[in-house]
């Protein structure tokens, strides 16, 4: 009698054993969660006119506090290893990537806080539920409404990102994936201008994201069937033991899980959402998303690939090599034809995902450190880059079409100069972080990737040349072309928030280009994955 067993409810056979918790190890996550929860309460109880200030400071304080705690905790080796019943594994790569995410998220929050003298954050709609262009929307703007929920949402997303690369089992990884994605879907749909484009971006991202989550879940289920456990450590043991009967579940499981993860980094052929979403989302959100999601998702890929299923890598490596090559080629070639700055940077981010995959495929500790260094270099440059894009305006709205950027260098030499420098970093020109990053990513592929590694590096260098052409063309456009007739394109005077974000992003780009040794060394020291 199935129904009867519920009623009688026999006791647990073995006594219930609570999970061990190393609170220091998960303290950064707890701080960010607390910040997000308080943020929601602020939305509930604080008066409207104070919300923006409270939210921005709360988000910044919790991110910085989490980073400080993270640094303190990482100094003590005792807090390494699995905690919370192995659901969270705090090791070198996890700590490094978490630190990177926290810093980049703080920069992201700074760019989101930009008001340009208005009442709420400039990039976000005063009321997401109002019909675009309706009187109701205008009334909301006049009444000084603002969607300051974006800051708690960002913090929730950061929580997911912190957990994603540290997840010890596939279930935790899946929930982390959702926690990081769900707020991003929302944030994408809240742009103040070009609302319809923004809503379309949000919908596309949501539908495709849900689709990719399904792939991840399907793969996780197959791997569970194979190993009898969701823990990456157990899956690794099962792969090494290689029992013949269930072997059919392993490869489809690995492939499907990787599809779910590669979607998040925007690797070809799972990239189709990237240009539309990057273009439609509010520009600061695009920057935050491009930088932090990539860090988190590559962290998860590294952990799955290096800890979980490394032992049968010869079965699936070919596919990922093809994906990496395709990603670089498609990203680079399609960026040539773009006419919108945000779409151009989106295709460039696709190409960069390919470059990072080259490092991942080296299957060596140096590959891990190369990946992590690349992520940091790319992330800071990207946030600063999108922050600059958000400054360039025509008639109050963003001038994202390339033709509008013509001659920007003459009127606004500093803004154009910074952007040109960031573009050079994207291209990987020496003395920028891009060069050091490309070196760090490609060197392990040559040393440990075998023939395919060398081939990938050759493709990577060729693609870098193509993208460099695109960036140089944009620089030429900014400096050596007549500005278009009509309303003048201006770079708004940024508030200290955006200025600080751009300055830090640019400085990091410069410093990592000239003196990359410190960060490279840190990445190398923290490149050892722990299994338990």
């Amino acid at each position: 009698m199935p129904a009867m067993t519920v009623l009688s409810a026999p006791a647990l056979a073995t006594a219930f054993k609570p999970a061990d918790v190393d609170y220091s190890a998960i303290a950064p996550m707890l701080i960010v969660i607390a910040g997000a929860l308080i943020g929601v309460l602020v939305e509930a109880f604080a008066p409207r006119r104070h919300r923006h200030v409270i939210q921005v400071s709360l988000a910044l304080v919790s991110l910085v506090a989490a980073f400080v705690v993270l640094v303190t905790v990482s100094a003590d080796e005792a807090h390494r290893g699995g905690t919370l019943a192995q659901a969270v594994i705090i090791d070198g790569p996890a700590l490094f990537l978490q630190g990177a995410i926290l810093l980049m998220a703080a920069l992201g929050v700074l760019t989101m806080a930009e008001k340009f003298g208005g009442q709420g954050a400039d990039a976000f709609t005063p009321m997401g539920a109002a019909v675009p262009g309706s009187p109701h929307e205008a009334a909301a703007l006049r009444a000084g409404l603002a969607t300051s929920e974006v800051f708690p949402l960002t913090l929730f997303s950061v929580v997911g990102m912190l957990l994603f690369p540290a997840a010890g089992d596939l279930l935790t990884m899946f929930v982390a994936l959702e926690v990081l994605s769900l707020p991003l879907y929302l944030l994408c749909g809240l742009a103040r201008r070009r609302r319809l484009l923004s809503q379309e971006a949000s919908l596309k991202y949501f539908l495709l994201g849900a689709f990719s989550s399904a792939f991840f879940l399907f793969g996780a289920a197959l791997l569970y069937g194979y190993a009898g456990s969701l823990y990456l450590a157990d899956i690794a043991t099962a792969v090494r033991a290689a029992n013949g009967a269930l072997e059919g579940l392993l490869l489809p499981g690995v492939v499907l899980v990787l599809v779910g993860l590669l979607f998040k980094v925007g690797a070809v052929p799972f990239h189709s959402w990237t240009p539309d979403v990057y273009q439609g989302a509010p520009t600061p959100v695009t920057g935050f998303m491009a930088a932090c999601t990539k860090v988190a998702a590559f962290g998860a890929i590294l952990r799955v690939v290096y800890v979980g299923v490394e032992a049968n890598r010869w079965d699936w490596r070919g596919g990922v090599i093809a994906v990496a090559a395709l990603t670089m080629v498609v990203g680079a070639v399609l960026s040539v034809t773009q006419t919108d700055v945000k779409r151009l940077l989106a295709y460039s981010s696709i190409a960069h995902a390919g470059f990072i995959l080259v490092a991942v495929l080296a299957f060596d500790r140096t590959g891990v450190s190369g990946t992590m260094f690349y992520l940091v270099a790319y992330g800071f440059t990207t946030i600063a880059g999108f922050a600059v894009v958000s400054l360039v305006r025509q008639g109050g709205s963003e001038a994202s079409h390339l033709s509008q950027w013509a001659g920007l260098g003459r009127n606004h030499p500093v803004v154009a100069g910074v952007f040109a420098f960031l573009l050079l970093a994207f291209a990987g020109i020496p003395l920028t972080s891009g060069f050091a990053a490309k070196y760090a990513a490609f060197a392990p592929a040559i040393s440990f990737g075998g023939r395919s590694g060398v081939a990938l590096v050759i493709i990577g260098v060729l693609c870098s040349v193509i993208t460099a052409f695109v960036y140089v063309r944009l620089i030429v456009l900014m400096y050596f072309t007549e500005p278009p007739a009509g309303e003048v394109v201006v770079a708004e005077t940024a508030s200290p928030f955006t200025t600080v974000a751009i300055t830090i992003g640019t400085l990091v780009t410069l410093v990592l280009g000239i003196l990359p040794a410190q960060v490279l060394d840190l990445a190398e020291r923290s490149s050892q994955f722990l299994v338990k």
Partner: protein
Amino acid sequence: MSNPYVPLLFLLAIGGGFAVFSVGAAAVSGPKRYNRAKLDAYECGIEPTPQAAGGGRVPIKYYLTAMLFIIFDIESVFLYPFAVAFNQLGLFALVEMVLFILTVFVAYAYVWRRGGLEWD
């Protein structure tokens, strides 16, 4: 011992039988004098139209309510196993559950304060 669901089956049969009997008996025994007004349905409310107002669309307010319902529905899903196994789980699980409920109630406070629960 017979199947524990047999009494339920009996109850179902008795209930169905009573309903059929009542309607049938009324149809057989009652007087029948019809006119149009008697057969007509009394319309208290806006007359139904083939196409609802606004192109057959439902206002988004319903969606909000449904969404909030689901959030608390899922919370209750976690509460049920917790309640069943409460005696064995001990203090740790109680603390975890309280934390969970508190966090979900943060959402509740937000929705309440922002007027998400008002229909107007």
